[in-house]
């Protein structure tokens, strides 16, 4: 228990008749980088605002550092927050933006100067201190916004889609910087995003959310390779995982999934329980777990036709026609196939995911 930084217990939140969060539970460890990942409108910001104290919870409790803060004001919760729109005070210089909270708290001037100088140094915004927010670029503004959380000297950082307003190049730059910041400060960070790349690259653990419910909470590799249900499997990964609807069949003691008359042997699949014959399932395979013109030992080899080729530099993405549907395959960028080419493919079933067609849960 001592190692838990933020603990959300049975949290519910409704706006009038609309329930956005329903008895949600989440424990975040000290120093952990937790990413809340989900599509727009699933309740990520709402959860973050509850933790911040910007929204009154309808039910449940929130603990920060073992202290029940459910009814505390935001400023007393030991949190700093960074917003998507930067939310810098437009009429104040960068320096005064950084020091605003400290001045409100009536800290001694020397202490304020010290903290502002330290934050400015960490974020390398010293040359900007005398400027107004309108004279800064988007990346610089977000740095200042992070600085405003930094000077508060808090245990927990909350980020609400901090990079979503930036262009692609700045986004990846600042992403690295946030990661570096976390490594050097080592405080707890809760980071909301709808961008799976941000989630996968930054997180110690990812909580994938849908309609206010956490679908899976695990480290990025587990989320990516062993999605708990069909939603998580489809949400993570670009291009998306290939899905095949089929049925488990017994071929002389050998379990296979039959998809449109094509068999996929299941010996290599790390199943959680018995695979009953006749069960309707969804087979999911990521594009990079399909071998092209080289066979996976013990696995069937199937025929496929190249439909479209999308060279992406390091990788080459092939869209194939196979088992009566279109699927994507990722191969090395140097291997080129013209559309219409016939080739052999073989699935790496040890990395595949199989879901029950009815419950949509992993089996």
């Amino acid at each position: 228990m001592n190692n838990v930084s933020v603990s959300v217990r049975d949290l519910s939140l409704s706006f009038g008749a609309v329930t956005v969060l329903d008895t949600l539970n989440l424990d975040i460890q000290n120093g952990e980088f937790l990413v809340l990942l989900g599509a727009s409108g699933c309740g990520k910001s709402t959860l973050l605002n509850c933790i911040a104290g910007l929204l009154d919870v309808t039910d449940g409790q929130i603990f920060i550092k073992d202290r029940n803060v459910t009814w505390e004001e935001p400023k007393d919760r030991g949190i700093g927050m960074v917003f998507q729109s930067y939310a810098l005070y437009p009429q104040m210089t960068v320096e005064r933006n950084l020091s605003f909270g400290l001045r409100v708290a009536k800290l001694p001037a020397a202490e304020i100067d010290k903290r502002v100088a330290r934050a400015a140094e960490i974020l390398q915004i010293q040359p900007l201190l005398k400027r107004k927010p309108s004279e800064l670029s988007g990346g610089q503004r977000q740095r200042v916004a992070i600085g405003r959380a930094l000077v508060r000297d808090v245990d927990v950082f909350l980020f609400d889609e901090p990079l979503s307003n930036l262009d692609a190049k700045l986004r990846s730059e600042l992403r690295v910087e946030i990661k570096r910041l976390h490594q050097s400060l080592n405080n707890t960070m809760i980071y909301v995003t709808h961008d799976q790349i941000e989630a996968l690259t930054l997180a110690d653990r990812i909580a994938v959310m849908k309609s206010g419910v956490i679908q899976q909470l695990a480290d990025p590799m587990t989320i990516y390779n062993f999605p708990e249900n069909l939603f998580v499997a489809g949400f993570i990964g670009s291009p998306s995982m290939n899905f095949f609807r089929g049925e488990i069949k017994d071929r002389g003691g050998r379990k296979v999934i039959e998809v449109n008359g094509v068999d996929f042997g299941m010996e290599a699949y790390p199943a959680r329980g018995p695979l009953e014959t006749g069960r309707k399932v969804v087979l999911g395979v990521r594009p990079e777990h399909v071998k092209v013109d080289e066979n996976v030992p013990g696995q069937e080899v199937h025929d496929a036709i190249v439909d479209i080729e999308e060279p992406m530099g390091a990788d080459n993405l092939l869209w194939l026609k196979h088992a009566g549907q279109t699927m994507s395959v990722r191969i090395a960028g140097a291997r080129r196939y013209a559309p219409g080419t016939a080739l052999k493919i073989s699935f790496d079933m040890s990395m595949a995911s199989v879901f029950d067609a009815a419950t949509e849960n992993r089996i």
Partner: protein
Amino acid sequence: MADTIPLKGQAAHGASRLAPGPQGRKPRPMFSSRNIMIYGALIFAAAYYLLPLYVMIVTSLKGMPEIRLGNIFSPPVEITFEPWVKAWATACTGLNCDGLSRGFWNSVRITIPSTIMSIAIASINGYALANWRFKGADLFFTILIVGAFIPYQVMIYPIVIVLREMGLYGSLTGLIIVHTIFGMPILTLLFRNYFSSLPEELFKAARIDGAGFWTIYFKIMLPMSLPIFVVAMILQITGIWNDFLFGVVFTRPEYYPMTVQLNNIVNSVQGVKEYNVNMAATILTGAVPLIVYFVSGRLFVRGIAAGAVKG
């Protein structure tokens, strides 16, 4: 090098690649029938509205003998400022003969506190409604808006009674309170909508920074809201200055605002109608809203430009 395309402005290799024929901006004739139509209509409309003002100004600068000649459009032969002086200082309004000056100062003493009070209260109302979403906020707002649609005339008599019971009937204070209250619905709506349009995340950031209700209002919201305060100021100053009904109903003659005095001068029945004095008095009364428009119109534009710091 030979096959690079010459860039505009670079005399690359001398020869131009432009073919003969149309190039650059399309020429438009100055006196096309379209232009004549547009400018003609605009000039006509402008003249239509400016003509009365012209007549007023020239008449106010003429002596009575010249006015009796009847040429209202002719410029004054002999310019005199006598009517202006008389309108301001000595024209008679029923009981006393000290011109519009008394009404002017009454109006100033009514307009300034009413404007400041109504804007101060309405901006805090609007801020609370937009950002703090307290319990019953929607109901409160609905009641306030309904208030905006009730005709003034319905409320006059009840207000007279209320003011009388408070011992404020006939005083400047009473009239100031009435103006403040009547400005409330529209100004609150104005401020609420403006504060709602500011990014909500700014408000959230300020709360995380530990700022409370008043700190956020004074340190965050006010500095970002100059344009809307100027708009509210224009609305209130012109509205209250031009008010006639409340002024005549709720005050005594010695406190009559300028508009009421103007009416009394223009409509006084004794003696000859001094058109030049009436014109001067009218222009004097209208001058304050006009000046407010001219001065704060520029401030307004500057305010918008300064406030336009987008996320």
